[in-house]
């Protein structure tokens, strides 16, 4: 385990692609995404830590000097209870927005892993492109960057301790956000 725990972002912190830990985390991300795309939500929520904060801030158009436009108000602002409630809802046969289910695909690229000041926690950032279609629709798209804090709980086993979903649109061009990111 060659992860160094120094100031975030410093080169020494980086866990470069090709390193075993990077590969392990990549595999976790891919398997996690497959659970979402396969509607295995109960298994997915098991990967969330008890203290998870899962948030997707609303974005607005702002001048560059005012930052990236992420607002205090969010599209998602979830803890483990509310995520479990969402998942339980998806298990009913009356969550109409997903009954019948949408068909999603989570494309994860540009993954960067950085150590934190805790040896078992890693800052993992990834570009996400989520495509979604339901009924006879064309593909809807959600693009952005996801900033995760992953906690290693056993070899090759992680829990999502924090997930910030930084979506690129200010106006979501989708009827709803009944899918997870």
């Amino acid at each position, binding site marked *: 385990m060659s992860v160094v725990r120094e100031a975030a972002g410093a080169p020494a912190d980086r866990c470069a692609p090709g390193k075993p830990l990077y590969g392990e985390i990549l595999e976790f991300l891919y398997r996690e995404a497959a659970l979402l795309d396969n509607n295995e939500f109960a298994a997915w929520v098991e990967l969330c830590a008890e203290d998870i904060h899962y948030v997707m801030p*609303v974005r607005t158009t702002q001048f560059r000097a005012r930052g990236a436009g992420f607002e205090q*108000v969010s599209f998602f602002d979830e803890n483990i*209870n509310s995520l479990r409630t*969402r998942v339980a*809802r998806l298990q009913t046969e009356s*969550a109409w*927005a997903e009954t019948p289910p949408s068909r999603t695909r989570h494309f994860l690229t540009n993954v960067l892993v950085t150590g934190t000041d805790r040896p078992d926690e890693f800052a993992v950032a990834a570009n996400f492109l989520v495509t979604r279609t339901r009924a006879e629709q064309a593909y809807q798209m959600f693009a952005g960057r996801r900033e995760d804090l992953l906690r290693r709980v056993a070899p090759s086993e992680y829990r999502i301790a924090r997930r910030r979903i930084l979506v690129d649109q200010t*106006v*979501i061009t989708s009827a709803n956000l009944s899918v997870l990111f």
Partner: protein
Amino acid sequence: MANERVSGKAAQMGTRLASGEDLEHIVRPEEGLISRRIFADPEVYERELEGIFGRAWFFIGHESEIPERGDIVARQCGVDPVILVRDQAGVVRAFLNSCRHRGMRLCRTDRDNATTLRCPYHGWAYSTSGELLAASSEHHYGPGELDKSQLGLIPVTRLGSYRGLVFGSWDPAAPSLEEWLGDMRWYMDIIFGRTGEIEFVGVPQIWDVECCWKIATDNFTDNFHVYWTHQSLVELGLLPSDPDFASHGHMVTLNNGHILHFVQGPPMEAFQGLGLPKSLWPRFKEHLNPAQAQIAQAHGYSAGTMWPNFHWLQLVTTGDTKSEPVGILNLRLEIPLSPTRTRMYSWFAIDEAAPADYRKISYETYVRCFGPSGIFDQDDMENWEECTATARGPAAKRYALHHKMGIGRSPDATWPGPGTSYADSYGEMTQRAWYAEWLRRMRHPAQAPGAVQRPRARVAS
């Protein structure tokens, strides 16, 4: 200088469509029959743009969204882009978001704070109160060619504010905001004045739904869908398991198409006083008259539509299976983009007097339950899209929807508030009242739409 306002002949569109059909025949609110045709038809939509969005009163924003001088938010009035600004004197104003010169959008961010607005195209600069401060290359204009005093920003024709809610209309002949809201103000007091001021928190969520805007408005005054559409939450125990649970209340129809519901929740303290914390209840009597205060005290849910497309939702719920119910105030606005596409706005609002812990849990519950990701709203949007999609075909357009529930019900004279009230908040009176106003508006189209105009009065707020 040439007068910029030129009279064209007023379009007398009436209610007859190009196909020969007449809206009077296919929209019969008094019979509870509303043709599917009006929900996906380009011709009907074109007429709505002029007849409704060109002349009714529309919510633009709340004063708390622009607290400081120079604060600006970019919004719509009807469907036209406007800026809502607090000028340097502190006056709230609204202008078409379009430069007087070539029409460039002046404010291209969602919000800003500025002392002047400078156009990117040729640099015309406007004050926050709309005056043209400087044009471009002014010395190249000849005498009379650039009358800056006449070239201020185009103000929203009528602007008004009630309890911090700013409304505008593009119709110079519109009644005053007070007149137009009429008795609806009595109920708005309960929602927006029960404990003092209400604050809109942060920015709205905005998203686009492939639906007719009217399908959504219809849904916002529909109480008896809750048990069925949100059945998943009944299954999880977030909603009561009695299909009648949202029927214990009253609905009210008012002049000008305004409509609303007040509903009692389950017999628990959490569902009284509009779900507000008990510590705030004494304020009802301070800020409301006794009848209003009693209504606030006795009800948990309320939904109201300031005709045509602005709604309050006052609810008590929880966003997960482990928490206690909490009150939420959610504001909603629908802006049509096409006959079958609508831009949705959802704001979270709260009493300024509310304690910090309640603010936090109310906000979190709002995010989890409402808006595009909301475990409630998600399923409504599935309905809106599919109700619209099935209304497109030539066969569907021959058939009416069914809005007859309570068509013969007598009003409840004991209701202490204004308007026509009905006991039992399951019914379709409010929708029928809404469509009646819609039809009335479609009968009397806007003033001559073709006139080339220059803005009239400076601005009024």
